């Protein structure tokens, strides 16, 4: 049951203004009073509110941004699913962008004392040095799309390895033996994990010959670099494995320009769906990256962490990627 601030004020002999300050995590109330107020409310509502009432969603962006302009925003809207889930548990979600190391440091330190109950951290653009900041955090924290580090870390990641292995098996089953992997210029966690999986697959399957080709980060650049590859190679490879949707789009453009037909002359398989607005003469066989599901799982893991004592063992949730079969692979 909800309690009115007036009731709380009367019961504890404080003013309603003080109650409001305490609830909203604002300065101006002494810690002892805040604790009394929150404990009283927790008792009345049968729900622990002493640890703060809001959660922070921190979006880390490397500075300068890795995913340029409107491209990254294709994904970021998916954090709304986290918000929806947390709201169901009556938690307010504050959005904070952290551009680079220093801002993330500031955001994490601030969260230790401002009434933040928990943090969701989108860490897809983490560089090596950024990981060291995690130890500063004193509230429950769930990260996503980043490497695992210490035992206590909690994270939700896409299962990149599963997708790459399943995709490669599929290409192999369709007779592809020479496969080239088109990669972005950047090395963010998800991209690195896909590349490592590709290499591992090649090591285990010597009958497949594979190689990497760096395209770029911008669509135009990817298109140009893909074209360069196709015009330079003596014989077209059987298939191209496309690292993400932008590489898929750029590569598709270059193939159309060169008049190379998919899948007759070359097979394509990509990770992540291409946006609806891109119309291609074939349906790309690809792995659906469950961005929304990931966001919900992050929220659920955080809720779990906030509602039980910390046992010191972090969890890593891996979300598998489903294959959506199109007609871009021959046979």
């Amino acid at each position, binding site marked *: 049951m909800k309690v009115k601030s007036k009731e709380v004020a009367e019961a504890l002999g404080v003013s309603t203004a003080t109650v409001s300050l305490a609830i909203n995590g*604002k300065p101006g109330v002494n810690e002892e009073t805040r604790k009394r107020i929150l404990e009283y409310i927790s008792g009345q509502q049968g729900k622990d509110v002493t640890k703060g009432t809001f959660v922070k969603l921190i979006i880390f962006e490397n500075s300068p941004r890795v995913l340029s302009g409107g491209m990254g925003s294709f994904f970021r809207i998916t954090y709304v699913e986290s*918000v929806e889930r947390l709201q169901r548990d009556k938690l307010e979600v504050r*959005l904070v962008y952290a551009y680079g190391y220093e801002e993330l440091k500031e955001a994490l330190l601030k969260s230790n004392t401002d009434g933040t109950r928990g943090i969701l951290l989108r860490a897809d653009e983490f560089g090596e040095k950024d990981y060291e900041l995690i130890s500063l955090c004193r509230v429950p924290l769930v990260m996503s799309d980043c490497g695992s580090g210490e035992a206590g870390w909690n994270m939700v990641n896409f299962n990149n390895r599963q997708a790459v292995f399943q995709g490669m098996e599929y290409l192999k089953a369709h007779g592809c033996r020479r496969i080239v992997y088109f990669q972005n210029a950047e090395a963010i966690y998800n991209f690195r994990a896909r590349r490592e999986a590709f290499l591992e697959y090649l090591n285990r399957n010597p009958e497949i010959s594979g190689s990497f080709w760096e395209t770029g980060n911008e669509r135009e650049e990817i298109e140009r670099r893909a074209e360069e590859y196709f015009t330079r190679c003596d014989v077209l490879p059987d298939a191209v494995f496309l690292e993400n949707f932008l590489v898929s789009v750029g590569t598709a453009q270059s193939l159309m320009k060169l008049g190379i037909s998919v899948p007759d002359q070359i097979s394509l398989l990509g990770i992540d769906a291409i946006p609806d607005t891109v119309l291609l003469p074939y349906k790309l066989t690809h792995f659906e990256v469950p961005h929304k599901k990931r966001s919900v799982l992050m929220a659920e893991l955080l809720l779990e962490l906030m509602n039980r004592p910390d046992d010191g063992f972090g969890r890593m949730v891996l979300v598998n990627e489903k294959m959506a079969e199109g007609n871009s692979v021959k046979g």
Partner: protein
Amino acid sequence: MKVSIKDISERTGFSPATVSNALNHKKGVNADTAAEIFRVAKEMGYISESRIGKIKFVIFKRNGLIIDDTPFFSLLIDGIEKECRASGMEMVLCRLNYEDEDYEEQVNWLIHDNSSAVIMLGTELMEEDVALYKNASCPFLMLDYWSWDMSFNGVLINNADSARMATEYLLRKGHRRIGYLRGEFRIKAFRSRAVGYATALNKAGLVPEKRYTVTLSTTINGAYEDMKAYLKTGPELPTAYFADNDMVALGAIRALQEKGYQVPEDISVVGFDDLPFCEIANPPLTTLRVPKQEMGRVAVRRILEVINGTDKIKTKTQVCTIFVERDSVRDLKDRNGGDGDEG
């Protein structure tokens, strides 16, 4: 004794101008400086603790037909976040689902929470939904929606003028039979676009004709399927279409091309929004670009004025679009041969 800006300035060591700028959420004050000034201002009793320190960005979802999954809204959020940060406000994200059982309760809680200001993304709001929000006791602004009775502060796209501009462009290119690809879910923005389209035709001595109006779903696939079904009926087609948005335009183009029509040789299309990648559509789509980030920023700046009480009147701010000319419109005056398609 009453505390003045000067007192705060002396206590903090920052100039009175900086103190004033910080307290009024003006730009150009370092975030740490602003925080310190606020802390001291509160301590000295210059501002009361109940002063609004956060802005809630509320995404209203009626059925998700328009706002689901499009990059448009994340760019808006980018703009809002940047401006909130620049002015030292916390930004809270809220989702409001019309289909929730306790929807009304959620709304009431939202509009009477005096510790926050609300910027509500009203893209999917219908006129009948609006009454609830009229009692808002917190600073409140509608984004991408406008109510005729002027009960809200609004920041929206200049839909009517933009649509008129696009239609006039088609007229200038020699088109006289200009049809309308009409989004099925009639959000307010689409209605305004229809008005702009009709205005341009009227000014040219023409009228919107029913036979050239096609109602399509607002997803690419939906629009494609609907257009395909429409073309099967063997309709008489205009020489050009103005479309409610890019999704509708691109879906229709795909259906037209499949049916053997060339765009723009046989039929021209103008979209609305300038979604990512519509520059690589085949043909690249001529459309209207909505400055999304800027729209978010304008909304925050406007609500700060409301919060600070610097003006009491309600305003409607319309963000102008930018016409982006690409290759999906044919210049009929330019052609050689002329196959006489003036109806």
